[in-house]
């Protein structure tokens, strides 16, 4: 009887399985779902009950995963972040790869697709209002070509969203995901002893703990209707420089005017955590409104800002 129940578990494909967020998501879903893990970087071992593949979405063999398994849902977390690889490789992976994945989802009648995007798509500029909602224009591409793959991925998801409503696509635009094992720009900064800041600028920021973000994704997968685009953020805010203070970081001010000055300095320093194309995000706020997501999915984050920052404080004290 137990064996029969195990066989009838719905099957979910999770991309980017080697990442910290994917592993948090898989840990929460494996009880209820049969999870198939995919990553182009490495073959991760997550237990005998989680088939794992190391393959690029763009490779022909990728479709075999859909042939072998009776996949009903896809959680697409395998997105190269802006600090990874070069612009061309990111475009190939994030845009062309996602295009192929969505085509396969349509071909194999997938009933639920979650795509992880980022709040970066809104762009950071001086005239941003706060509490940006999901209908706001995506202005990241006008700032830098380095973020164009993020905007293109969203455009693609939108096309599939209206063209194939049966896919039930949900696009999530989270604020800064931080916490243990997270290797994105913001987490690298908060983990560092010395952190650059633009002199005279301390934009408001939002942070969400990786476990809360994993819970948000699980909430979406467990609620199959509600397709659409959602910001994911907590109802709490802090200025960037105060966040650094609370993480026991030593601030290194960088000359901020004219705008070319910090760009030159950032180019010279070649810091992965402070790349030139993200400088505006350390200058102007991009505060998103997560109300729609919270009310639609009944989502309540567990981690406060203080708990998030205490992790980074303790990390430094342990070193």
């Amino acid at each position, binding site marked *: 009887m137990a064996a029969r129940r195990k066989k009838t578990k719905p099957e979910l494909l999770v991309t980017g399985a080697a990442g910290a967020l994917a592993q948090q998501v898989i840990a929460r879903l494996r009880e209820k779902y049969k999870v198939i893990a995919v990553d182009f970087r490495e073959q991760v071992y997550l237990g005998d009950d989680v088939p794992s593949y190391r393959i690029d979405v763009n490779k022909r063999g990728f479709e075999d995963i859909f042939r072998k398994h009776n996949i009903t849902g896809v959680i697409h977390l395998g997105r190269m972040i802006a600090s990874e690889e070069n612009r061309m490789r990111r475009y190939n992976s994030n845009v062309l790869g996602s295009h192929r994945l969505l085509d396969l989802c349509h071909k194999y009648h997938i009933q639920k697709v979650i795509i992880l995007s980022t709040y970066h798509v809104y762009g950071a500029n*001086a005239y*941003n*209002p706060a509490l*940006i909602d999901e209908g706001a224009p995506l202005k990241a591409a006008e700032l830098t070509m380095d973020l164009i793959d993020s905007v293109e991925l969203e455009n693609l998801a939108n096309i599939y969203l209206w063209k194939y409503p049966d896919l039930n696509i949900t696009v999530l635009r989270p604020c800064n995901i931080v916490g243990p094992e997270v290797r994105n720009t913001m987490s690298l900064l908060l983990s560092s002893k010395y952190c650059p800041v633009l*002199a005279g600028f301390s934009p408001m920021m939002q942070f969400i703990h990786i476990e809360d973000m994993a819970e948000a994704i699980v909430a979406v997968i467990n609620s199959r209707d509600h397709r659409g685009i959602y910001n994911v953020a907590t109802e709490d*805010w802090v200025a960037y420089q105060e966040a650094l203070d609370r993480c026991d970081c030593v601030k290194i001010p960088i000359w901020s005017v004219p705008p070319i000055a910090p760009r030159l300095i950032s180019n010279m320093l070649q810091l992965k955590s402070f790349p030139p194309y993200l400088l505006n995000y350390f200058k102007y*706020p991009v505060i998103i409104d997560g109300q729609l997501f919270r009310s639609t999915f009944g989502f309540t984050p567990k981690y406060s800002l203080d708990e998030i920052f205490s992790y980074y404080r303790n990390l430094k004290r342990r070193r």
Partner: protein
Amino acid sequence: MKLRPLLRRIFVSEELERQYTNIAKPVGTLGYDPWGLNVDTNIVTMALFKPIFEKYFRVETHGIENIPASGPALIVANHSGQLPIDGVLIAYALATRKVNPRIPRAMIERFFPTVPYIGNLLNQMGAVLGDPVNCAKMLGREEAIIVFPEGVRGSGKLYRDRYQLKRFGNGFMHLAMQHNAPIVPVGVVGCEETIPAIANIAPLAKMLGIPYAPIAIPFIFPAKVILNFGEPLHFEPGEITEDEVSKRVDKVKAEVSRLIDKGLHERKRVF
């Protein structure tokens, strides 16, 4: 940041602390709201502004009780004096009124967020980029918002044009109707004389990317300031043409003009 709580302990009187305990602010766990308001910074600047309000400008306020105790409200005033001193004076008057004090939000020029240090400081004090989305979201969160519908046309006007209202934009009326927010008109008298400008060097302003470059003595004169708050005006929500919106805006403008005349009549001398 430990500096702000320290400044709060040094400069903020017990009376002002008590006053602020009566003000509910929708801030997060670290004392910030989404627009960057920081309660510590706000109260410290208010404490530092007390002698300026009471002794330097000797501000007289009439009708401050006309601002509703709670709920969304637009406080619409004439703008003058090159610097946003009028906004700070109105904010101080409302934050320190004896009954039902509130921390209002002031909409500021789009130029400020690009200025290092000043932009952040203004945000922490409660000022917000003058964007309709910001205004709508704040009214949705039941804030009281100070609006200068003349914008830079008002603050940058020359001394010879003092107390002549410039064109009012219609944006505030649309927002008031959408959010069913009362409009409290304010006539500010005195700020025109704080930094009298005799000319504006428009090409220099354009080159520097600032709204105006006045020729003025770089000194803020201690003009006596009178703030007259009028009765709240209510406008029915609903779909109306832009011409009808303009007529409603003209009603508000006429009321602001009446309150300015009242203040000028009450004023015994300029300084």
